[in-house]
């Protein structure tokens, strides 16, 4: 065996050009694979974090009817006594805050705006004193100030502000319906502009103080949801189930606890599709690399058919010859895998610190990811190890086929081969 390894190694160093070209094809394939995976993983992790931190929270408690009709944001399906529930959840050491989510339109007029207009948006009423226990919105404030209870002020996303030409201090009129379905208008002033990393928030969500919304929407203390924050790695399903059990124990049967995965099914569906699409692309990259390697190995084996015939004539068994050629291909795979891993890891490292700025895409197009600007790659050791091993194994498998074909030739034909 040692002799076969030594022979394979000598062939690798002797046919240096071929080794380098083939190993480079493998290295590029593996490098792209590692980078692509790290890029996708980074996008997925950042998206999930931005989704949980700014959009859905980890777990949301709401009325079971509200959950079924949530598309139309019904204000008549509310939780009447949120503080009882919040207290119960906080006893479980889980921070929780109330929110009212409602739909409507913002109307703006020429001067100070450039032109008259109206845009349908989603409003979220928050308790400014405690909302940041769950949603770190305060940290995303770009200009102006954060909301204060009792003030007729709102906070809007920077992209939305840019779209309508709004600045801090500009007035806006909210047109919506009360809990009972009557039209209501609320005149407010823009207190702050946030630059939220979640495009759904940055593009069309307006925040308003809870007491103002409660008063104008005639909510009588009712809220549409209570949002909870858990560590990102927490088992949200188990906790949600536990919360529902506690609610039932307390005799509250009309509420449901939904995890961020339930709330963001649209995102998860898109993420799965993207992953599948990307995997197909990665498979294509691998196939291209494999075809390159296969072609080179094919040429390498066929140009050495006479040598192969001589080895067989001298008494080398077919299995030994097969091992020698497979080891040689494995050596190329190993060199390519090492280079590819280094190449891929370097790019991953580079973009994990520099990031890739995609704000120009996310701003104008909803691509599903909850990202607004810079995407960072995330190192995934499992994928690196897998790609490394796959690079070697595929090279060896590819060498097997032409070797097998060459070994099917008669020794005399091999020796005659030019």
């Amino acid at each position, binding site marked *: 065996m040692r002799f076969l390894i030594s022979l394979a190694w000598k062939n690798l*160093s*002797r046919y240096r050009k071929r080794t380098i070209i083939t190993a480079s094809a493998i290295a590029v394939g593996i490098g792209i694979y590692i980078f692509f995976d790290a890029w996708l993983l980074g996008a997925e992790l950042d998206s999930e974090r931005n989704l949980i931190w700014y959009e859905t929270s980890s777990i949301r408690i709401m009325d079971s009817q509200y959950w079924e009709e949530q598309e139309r944001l019904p204000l008549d399906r509310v939780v009447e006594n949120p503080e009882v529930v919040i207290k119960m959840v906080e006893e479980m050491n889980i921070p929780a805050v109330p929110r009212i989510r409602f739909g409507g339109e913002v109307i703006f007029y020429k001067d100070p705006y450039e032109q008259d207009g109206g845009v349908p948006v989603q409003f979220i009423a928050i308790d400014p004193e405690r909302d940041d226990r769950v949603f770190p919105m305060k940290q995303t404030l770009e200009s102006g100030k954060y909301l204060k209870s009792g003030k007729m002020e709102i906070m809007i996303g920077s992209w939305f502000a840019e779209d309508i030409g709004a600045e801090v201090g500009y007035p806006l009129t909210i047109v919506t319906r009360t809990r009972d379905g009557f039209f209501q208008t609320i005149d407010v002033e823009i207190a702050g502009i946030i630059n939220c990393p979640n495009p759904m928030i940055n593009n069309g969500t307006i925040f308003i103080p809870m007491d103002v919304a409660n008063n104008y929407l005639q909510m009588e203390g009712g809220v549409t949801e209570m949002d909870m924050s858990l560590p990102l790695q927490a088992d949200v399903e188990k906790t949600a189930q536990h919360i529902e059990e506690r609610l039932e124990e307390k005799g509250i049967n009309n509420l449901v606890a939904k995890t961020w995965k339930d709330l963001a099914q649209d995102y998860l569906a898109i993420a799965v599709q993207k992953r599948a699409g990307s995997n197909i692309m990665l498979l294509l990259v691998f196939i291209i690399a494999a075809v390159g390697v296969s072609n080179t190995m094919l040429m390498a084996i066929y140009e050495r058919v006479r040598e192969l015939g001589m080895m067989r*004539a001298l008494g080398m068994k077919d299995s030994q010859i097969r091992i020698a050629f497979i080891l040689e291909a494995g050596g190329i795979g190993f060199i390519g895998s090492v280079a590819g891993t280094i190449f891929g890891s370097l790019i991953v490292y580079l973009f994990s610190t520099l990031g890739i700025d995609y704000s120009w895409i996310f701003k104008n197009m909803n691509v599903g990811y909850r990202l607004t600007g810079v995407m960072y790659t995330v190192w995934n050791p499992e994928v690196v190890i897998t790609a490394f091993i796959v690079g070697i194994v595929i090279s060896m498998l590819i060498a097997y086929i032409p070797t097998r074909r060459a070994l099917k030739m008669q020794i005399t034909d091999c020796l005659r081969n030019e």
Partner: protein
Amino acid sequence: MITLREVKKNYQAGETIVKALRGVSLDVDQGEFLSIAGPSGSGKTTLLNLIGCIDKADSGVIKIDKEDVDKLDKNELALFRRRKLGFVFQTFNLIPVLTAKENVAFALHLLNLSKNEIEERTMSLLKEVGLEGMEDRLPSRLSGGQQQRVAIARALVKKPAIVLADEPTANLDSDTGRAILELMEEMNKKHTTTFIFSTHDQMVMEFAHRLVQLHDGQITKDERRN
């Protein structure tokens, strides 16, 4: 040592069947220095290939060292060739990535000998064929004659019963060819190894101690010389 009885071999060349050997019978004793001669297409390479167990006869019997080689399977034939037969090819067929020493040692590695024995036997053979000091050269840095010497050393190093050489001097100039034949003759005497070589060169035929003439796949002359 070698017994061939009514050996026949046909080849398919397109739609035509070429009768390469038409019932050849031959006996070769241990230590013979035999040349199979004949014009191109006479069947000498086919005969050599059959004795070398790298091709199979269509009919007839081939016995080498009392072993009916036609009854051996692929792996058994490989082991048989490994132990009993040495080959010298017209185009030398050295492994280009191995040095002269490594090419010679190649045959011994297949026999799983100890490192010391491989080293000792390899160096001794290289000295015998006159390549002392050139053992670390790659084939590309050796002349045709030197490469054929390496090939002879590779064939002999495992102490085979028979060395088969297909037109061993065809790619060499006449002086080098003569030197190679002298070397083969010397090795034949020294090691009592049977040498069978094919040729159509008159000079090579003159070296042979026994000359077997083939024509159209049949032995037309079998002449022993002193």
